[in-house]
């Protein structure tokens, strides 16, 4: 139940740490695309990750540092 929630879309990742989330809804109200919702337990989760543009506003706004948004760098071998 307290496992890290991980969403991905191509090389972009959105992670929510439920143990840190207090359910204040700041991310829900700040999300420009309406991707995030509060679930039955009062924790943030992504409803429709396909809508997410990975702008990172939720990460910047979260007062409890529960969200991280990042892009995975594909390491290119040096000989390519």
């Amino acid at each position, binding site marked *: 139940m307290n496992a890290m929630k991980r969403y991905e879309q191509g090389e972009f990742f959105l992670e929510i740490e439920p143990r840190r989330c*207090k359910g*204040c*809804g*700041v991310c829900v109200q*700040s999300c420009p695309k309406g991707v995030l919702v509060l679930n039955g337990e*009062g924790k943030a989760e992504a409803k429709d990750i396909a809508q997410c543009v990975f*702008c*990172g506003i939720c*990460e*910047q706004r979260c007062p409890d540092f529960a969200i991280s948004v990042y892009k995975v760098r594909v390491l290119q071998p040096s000989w390519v």
Partner: protein
Amino acid sequence: MPNTKELARREEMHQRFTGAHALCAGCGAPICVRTILNAIEEPVVVVNATGCLEVATTRYPTTAWNVPWIHVAFENAAAVASGIETAYRVLRRRGKISREIRFVAFGGDGGTYDIGLQALSGALERGHRFIYVCYDNEAYMNTGNQRSGATPFAAQTSTAPVGERSFGKPQRRKDLTEIAAAHHIPYVAQASISDWYDLARKARQAAAVDGPAFLNVLSTCPRGWGYPTDQAVKIARLAVETCYWPLYEVIEGRWYLNYIPEEKLPITEWLRPQKRFAHLFEPQNRELLHQIQQQVDEAWEKLLRKCERYEAL
């Protein structure tokens, strides 16, 4: 002003304010602190007046601050900040410090509007180069919702209760941003936690000016205001949309309005979700609602007149 991605990258390298503090869900203070500290590029030293922010972020033996931080009493946050700044200036002149350092003082509205006002006024007048941030949650929330100079007219608090002969706080709130602007300091701004980019830009600008800067940030409090904890940003935005808390800045004595709502909402939109104003919606208090709307309109008109020569940024 850097964009979101740059701010995120900067925070990844050095997180100045960290999580796992004990501030309530729906509290505006951590949002305000996080945004402001991350927006300032230079190294910072933080001075923290007593209040919720200090109590909840530094529970022994842990701390949520990853920067040099000093806790001082309610009344002297600005005085201590000016002392640190003076010592820094002397050390810099002697060549013992070479880095640019910024000094940020955080105080609640009790420690700024009421108790710390004379220390703040003195520090602003002496012209120390520091940023004073008042996170204004409109009462002494840390000690149990007592009225302060920032509490709005007719709000219910534990020392201004509602009863047969009283309707909450009978006085109007004082306008601290205008008091700070009257010190002729280079930068004064009023911001809200709902408009984070505006807040980050103002913090950046406050760090850039050579002299004192003052930020007054509306910060919601779910316990004192009585709204559901998941509505913090919405409540703060309603305060801006109803023109109760206009976003403006005073740069070198010139007034700039940052945001004009497309449609000015009636003040009841902001009052209705809050339990501290619940008594105003009883039929015998209709006159009070009218009075509040009149006060807000009057203040907004006055502000527009001050800003009218300068177009909105």
